């Protein structure tokens, strides 16, 4: 699970009352990709980050990164940072190359836990949680 993915997740249950995020991360195993493993194409990376910047909740990202042991992100974004290619490349690295391999995601409102195994988040719902979602 990448930090980019984590930024989009929530536990939107009836109990959580419309909130259910950010999911708190308890990390057991984290892996950081070495650039040589996947090859770098900085133009592509910067373009990608610029594209999703709008959609990110920055506060969630900073907190989640800290939970994975990364404390290098600035507390807020500003004009200068957003136009700085070096910053964007570093941001790409944080969003895309850091993986939570094993751990737990916990809903801040209800305490419901979602395990992460082999990098895959498990959101399977139990029978009693499956409210009738159609109509």
């Amino acid at each position, binding site marked *: *699970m*990448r930090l*980019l*993915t984590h*930024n*989009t*997740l*929530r*536990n*939107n*249950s009836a109990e959580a009352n419309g909130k259910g*995020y950010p999911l708190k991360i308890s990390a057991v195993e984290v892996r950081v*990709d070495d650039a040589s*493993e*996947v*090859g770098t*194409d900085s*133009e*592509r990376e910067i*373009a*990608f980050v610029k*594209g*999703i910047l*709008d*959609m990110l*909740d920055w506060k969630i990202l900073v907190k989640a990164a800290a939970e994975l042991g990364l404390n290098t992100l600035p507390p807020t974004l500003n004009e200068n940072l957003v136009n700085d290619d070096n910053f964007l490349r570093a941001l790409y690295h944080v969003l*895309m190359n850091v*993986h939570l391999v094993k751990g737990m995601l916990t809903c801040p409102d209800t305490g419901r*836990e979602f*395990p992460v195994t*082999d*990098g*895959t*988040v*498990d*959101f*399977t*719902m*139990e*029978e*009693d949680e*499956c409210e009738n*979602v*159609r*109509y």
Partner: protein
Amino acid sequence: MEHHSEISHNRYNVLIEFAHIHLEFQRPELESVLSLHDIAIGRDCIEVPLPSSIPTVENYRPFLILSFDYHYAKEKFNLDDDGYVIQSDMSRFSKIDRTKPTIASVLSRCTLIRSAIELWGAGPSFDSCVEHARQLSSGCAGRITLENCMKLSSSWKITIHTLGTKFNREEQNDMRMKFAFFNLPGKVQMVNPTNEFLLIREVELDPKGTPLSQERDNFLSPPLAVYYGRVLGGIRDWRGNGRLDQFSLKKRSYLGPTSMDAELSLIMTNLGLVRNGSFCFDPFVGTGSILLTCGLRGGYCVGTDIDIRVLRGRSDEENVLSNFKQFRLNRPDLIRSDNALYHRHYRMNKPIYDVIVTDPPYGIRAGARKSGTKEEKIRAIPEDRRHDHIAQTKVYPVSDVMGDLLDVSARTLVMGGRLVYIIPSMRDFDVEKDLPNHECLEIAHVCYQPLQTELGRRVVVMKKVKEYDPSLRESYLSSVWINGPESAEKCANIRERLLEAAKLKPGYEEKAAYRKKRRQITREEKKKQRAKHV
């Protein structure tokens, strides 16, 4: 003099030859790939009717002529086009091109195109083609084309492509000599010449792509059309070059029962406009074959699936991720979740995906699953059992699968983003009324691939044209099927329909009884085996 006046030598003309497969996909794929370069047929180039010696040809012709204004072509493309442009390492294939692409590098992304040639002459007969070629330098584009070729050409050859008709060596040489008037400098070289010229003698094909019989009363029937031109991309037949081989199913480390043919997923990613840096999502990722193709085209991939067994794969070496690793791609993010409950797990405050490409579960091979129990009374799972408990899944009707897919797509695609999905359908199917709809999505293409006589699958391409309003979710979902349950029926329950159709066939009863008996025998054998080992 009768020559095809619409193919003007004042313009830059390209003849495209398609493979005789996936016929309905060819034009949509070509249009999609062209649009990746901001080229639209009708606006930036025109399609010129093919010359024809027969007034009405019923059968499909695997050729298409695109005609460009010369200055446009010169601005847009690198027309020098020498050497190989088709790279076999697709993972680095589509870098954002600062320099101008060649026409071959643009077109070769189409999996269904065999070759493209710079058209020097064309006509409904051999002589008219020669005559048309003689006029090449009379047009401004033709003159420059010829001049450029004279400069570059140090070696060349002419290949004759006669679609099923055999000509002996002498006859072939005669044909070649007819074009000798070009007086090209340099020598004839059979292996790897600088330029290869192609002389195509088109004949009518039957629906399967086999040339219709050419001989009648010992006379050879005249060709349908004849074309002559310079091969683009340095390779006569892009498909024969083993380009697709590396993606062939055989090579992937992990395959499941529903891994679709690699070619179809390549076509789907073209229809979806996946490019370098696209953010791609597959809500029913399964073994990840489609997502892998997105990755190969430079996309960032996210996949979800409710089935943990498929996500985990068979072992550490054989799973979705090992496929990506095999091709040195960034790993996709995988999430085990139920697409029917998408809104339960994701923030969806802003649309994020450029492309959603998927092969939804439709109950024929992989059964569709949705969370929730079949029972009436629901019991809470005790806390200590929760994490290992595998919740019961219940059948997820295809009509709901599609409704949820469209709604999630409408919500999470960026404006102009594309949804590409497969839906099984009988041949008899009203594309207007029987496909699922969504107010925010518009159908761009529907392509049919026949699988059996009456059953096939359709690949549907939709694009997001309207912003999603969350307060209208229920209204969106309730208007997915125009004809209500009737249309949903046509896509759903194909298994039942196939079963019903099979039951009507003669011999069904006997076959079913035989199969039942065999299953019984196998069960008994297994029991005996187990008893022995106890």
